[in-house]
């Protein structure tokens, strides 16, 4: 089992990594990671607005992990907590890359896939309208933003969302989700 996680982690843990984490995702881990990244960016020439965008997308990505993990039972009994997740934050040529990984029940896989594919198919103007529609019309669960998180990430980064499902067993998939934040502002891609 842990070999499976190690190989997923290995795949994500590439390039110039700033943070690589594997373990329980809780409020404290999210706060600590955010302040670590903030400290890293002090004194850099990255614009304030881009830093905020990065923090925003990071929080969204990590809170997605926090709220939406389905941990296979046998793994909870073994080494890991029920809120187990993986994430890496790294530098890229254009800015930053945030990659997260968590287990999901595979009956949810098609729905997540469909949601992301739909978001990726929208222009920036369509994303804006979709965001407003969901914000104003969809009931939010106690857990989170009713799917608003992914729309928000796509809108803020102006990049396509990347994902990959790795089959773990007959019941669970490992969901790897990656987003890129450019430090240079480019005109919105439509």
């Amino acid at each position, binding site marked *: 089992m842990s070999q499976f996680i190690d190989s997923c982690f290995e795949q994500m843990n590439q390039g110039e990594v700033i943070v690589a984490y594997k373990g329980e995702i809780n409020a404290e881990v999210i706060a600590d990671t955010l302040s670590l990244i903030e400290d890293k960016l002090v004194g850099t020439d990255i614009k304030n607005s881009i830093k905020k965008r990065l923090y925003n997308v990071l929080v969204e990505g990590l*809170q997605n992990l926090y709220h939406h993990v389905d941990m296979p039972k046998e793994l909870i009994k073994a080494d890991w907590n029920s809120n187990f997740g993986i994430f890496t934050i790294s530098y890229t040529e254009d800015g930053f890359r945030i990659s997260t990984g968590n287990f999901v029940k595979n009956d949810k896989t098609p729905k997540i896939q469909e949601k992301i594919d739909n978001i990726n198919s929208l222009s920036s103007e369509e994303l804006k309208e979709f965001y407003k529609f969901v914000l104003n019309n969809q009931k939010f669960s*106690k857990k989170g933003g009713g799917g*608003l998180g992914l729309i928000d990430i796509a809108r803020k980064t102006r990049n396509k969302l990347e994902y990959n499902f790795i089959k773990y067993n007959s019941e669970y998939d490992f969901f790897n989700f990656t987003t890129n934040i450019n430090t240079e502002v480019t005109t919105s891609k439509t």
Partner: protein
Amino acid sequence: MELINIEGTPKTPTVNMNPETGVVGIKGRSIPENSVEFYKPIVDWLEEYSKSPQPKTVVNMQLEYFNTSSSKCILDVFKKFEQLKKDNNEVVINWYYEEDDEDMLEAGEDYESIIKVPFKMIQIVD
């Protein structure tokens, strides 16, 4: 009615609400894991305030950034102001954003278009 003064934390904004002056201010970042819990007292206060509001209510929103779980709660807050306005009270909404922070400007425009109360967009220049 009581004054509300909530001090900001790394995950929640500073909130000041004064029933005597009719000035409401929310400032800082809003990224708690459980936003409903944080915003409930604010929405409840506004509900109460709306029963006998000041003739003029001024709202100062100066958010650094916020997560999507806060976004719905912030909309609930704005809906209270929308209702105040519908009840023929004067409502001024000042939406502050830092120079070149187009994300925050856009966020203000999103809310403005949903609640249909004009926002005064105020750029903060260092």
